[in-house]
C-alpha cells in the first residue's frame, strides 16, 4: 500500500488538490466566472459534446503538428549547412537570433495580414516559434562530436556526406531530441497564439471566445485539454527517442 502511494505520489497529490479546490469553491461560494470548481469544469466540458471538442482539439493539434514537421524539415538541413560552412554560419546565425528575439505575439497579426486567413499563416507562426531551438541544438550536436571520431572518419577517407550521415548525425541525436521535446511544446504555443489572432476554431480560440463571454468553466476545460495535448505530444517524442534511438539515452545504473 505504502509502495503504491509512493509510486503514484504526484498523481495522488493532484487528486487531493482537486478535492481541496472543490471544497474551497463551495465553502467560499466563489463565483463561477472567477474560479470554477472542478465539478463545474467537468459539467461545462460535458455540455459541449464530444464532437465539438474533437473539432477544436484537432484544429489546434493539426496546426501544431504541421508547424512542427515544417520546423524539423527546415531546421535540420539548415543546421547541417551552418555546421559545414563557417561563412554561412556567420551570415545566418545573427538572423536566427533576431527571429528568436522577436516576440511572436507581435509578429502574429502581421503574418495573418500578409498570408491571409486559413491554415497557412497559423502554420507559419507555429514554425517560426518551433524552429530556433531545433537549429541551435542540432548545430551544437553536430559540432560536439568527439574529435577522435572525426579523425576515424578522415582516416577512412569517407566523403563529407557520409561523415555527416554516419558519424555526426547519430552523435547529434541526443541534442536533436532534447530540442524536439522543447519544440513540440512550443509548436502548441504557436498554434494557440495563432488562434488568438485569427481563427474560428481550436482550443486557443475557444479560450478567447468563452472568456470574453464569461463562460470560464469551458475555458478551464479547454486549458486542461491543451495541457493534456501538449503532454501527450511531449511523451510521444520521448517514446520515439527511446524506441528508435535508445542507445543515446543516459543509461540507468
Amino acid at each position: 500500500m505504502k509502495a503504491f502511494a509512493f509510486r503514484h505520489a504526484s498523481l495522488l497529490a493532484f487528486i487531493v488538490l482537486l478535492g481541496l479546490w472543490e471544497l474551497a469553491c463551495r465553502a467560499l461560494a466563489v463565483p463561477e466566472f472567477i474560479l470554477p470548481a472542478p465539478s463545474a469544469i467537468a459539467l461545462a466540458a460535458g455540455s459541449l459534446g464530444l464532437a465539438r471538442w474533437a473539432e477544436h482539439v484537432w484544429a489546434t493539434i493539426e496546426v501544431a503538428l504541421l508547424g512542427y514537421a515544417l520546423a524539423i524539415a527546415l531546421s535540420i538541413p539548415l543546421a547541417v549547412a551552418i555546421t559545414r560552412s563557417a561563412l554561412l554560419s556567420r551570415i545566418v546565425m545573427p538572423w536566427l537570433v533576431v527571429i528568436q528575439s522577436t516576440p511572436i505575439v507581435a509578429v502574429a497579426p502581421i503574418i495573418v495580414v500578409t498570408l491571409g486567413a486559413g491554415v497557412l499563416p497559423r502554420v507559419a507562426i507555429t514554425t517560426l516559434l518551433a524552429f530556433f531551438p531545433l537549429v541551435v541544438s542540432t548545430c551544437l550536436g553536430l559540432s560536439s562530436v568527439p574529435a577522435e571520431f572525426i579523425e576515424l572518419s578522415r582516416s577512412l577517407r569517407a566523403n563529407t556526406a557520409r561523415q555527416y550521415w554516419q558519424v555526426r548525425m547519430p552523435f547529434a541525436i541526443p541534442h536533436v531530441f532534447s530540442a524536439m521535446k522543447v519544440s513540440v511544446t512550443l509548436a502548441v504555443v504557436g498554434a494557440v497564439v495563432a488562434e488568438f489572432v485569427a481563427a474560428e476554431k481550436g482550443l486557443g480560440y475557444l479560450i478567447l471566445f468563452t472568456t470574453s463571454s464569461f463562460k470560464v468553466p469551458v475555458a478551464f476545460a479547454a486549458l486542461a485539454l491543451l495541457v493534456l495535448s501538449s503532454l501527450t505530444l511531449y511523451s510521444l517524442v520521448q517514446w520515439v527517442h527511446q524506441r528508435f534511438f535508445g542507445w543515446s539515452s543516459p543509461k540507468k545504473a
Partner: protein
Amino acid sequence: MPCVIDLNAVTQTFVSSDGSPVTALHNVNLHLQRNEFISLIGPSGCGKSTVLRLIAGLLRPSAGEVRIFDLPVTEPRDEIGMVFQKPTLLPWLSVVDNITFPMRHKYGRVDARDQARAQALLQMIGLQDFGHKRPHELSGGMQQRVAIARSLLHDPDILLMDEPFSALDALTRDEMSFELLRICSERPKTVVFVTHSIQEALLLSDRIVVMSARPGRVSQIIDVPLARPRTLQTLTDPVFTRMANEIREQVFTRHAH
C-alpha cells in the same frame, strides 16, 4: 632494400593559439622495412603522434616528404589500418557492425566477404560470442580488441597504433601486448607503434625509435635483438632488462635538457 614507409627530412610546424609557431618535428628521417615492427617512444611533446598522423595522411608535412610504397602521401591511404588511444567504437552499432564499419563508411555497403572476414576477426580476438553486443557492454580491453579487429578488416599492409593500450589498466596492458604479438605473427604487417612504455616497446618491436622533445626529433634508433616469438620469458631475459635500463636512462637524461 625497398622501404615501405619513408620520412625524408620531415619538419612540422604548427601555429599555436597565440600565433607563435611551434616546431612539433624537426628534420625527422625514418625508413621502415616491410613487416617491421617499430615503436616510437619518448616524452610528451616529442612529436610521436605527429609522426603517426603524417604517415596516416591526416597531416601534411610543413617541409620534407612522407612516402608509402615509394609514393608521396597526400591523403589517408587504403593500405593503412589505424588504432587510436580510445577504442572509438560507435556506440549505436553492435560489435560486429563496428568491425565492418570501415566498409560501410568508405563505400556505403558491406558485402558478404566483409561479413565473413569480420566473423573471422572476431574469432581471432576471442570475442565470437560478443558480436551482437553493444560497445558499452564490453570492458575497455575488449573494446580496444574490437578496435584492432576493425583496423584489420581490409587486411592492411601497414598498421598505425597511437598508444592503443594507454587507456587500459596495467594487467590488461600486458595481456594486450601478447595478444598483439600473436595477431602480428599470424598475419605479418609493418607496424608503427607509439607508446610511453619502454617495456611494451622492447617486447613488441624489432627497432625502437627514441624521440626527444622541443623540438621533436629522432635522438636514437635502437635495434632489438631479442628472439621471436617473444614470450613472458622475454621479460626476464637479461638483455631485455639491460636494454630497458639503457633506454630509460636515455629518455630521462634527454628529457632533462
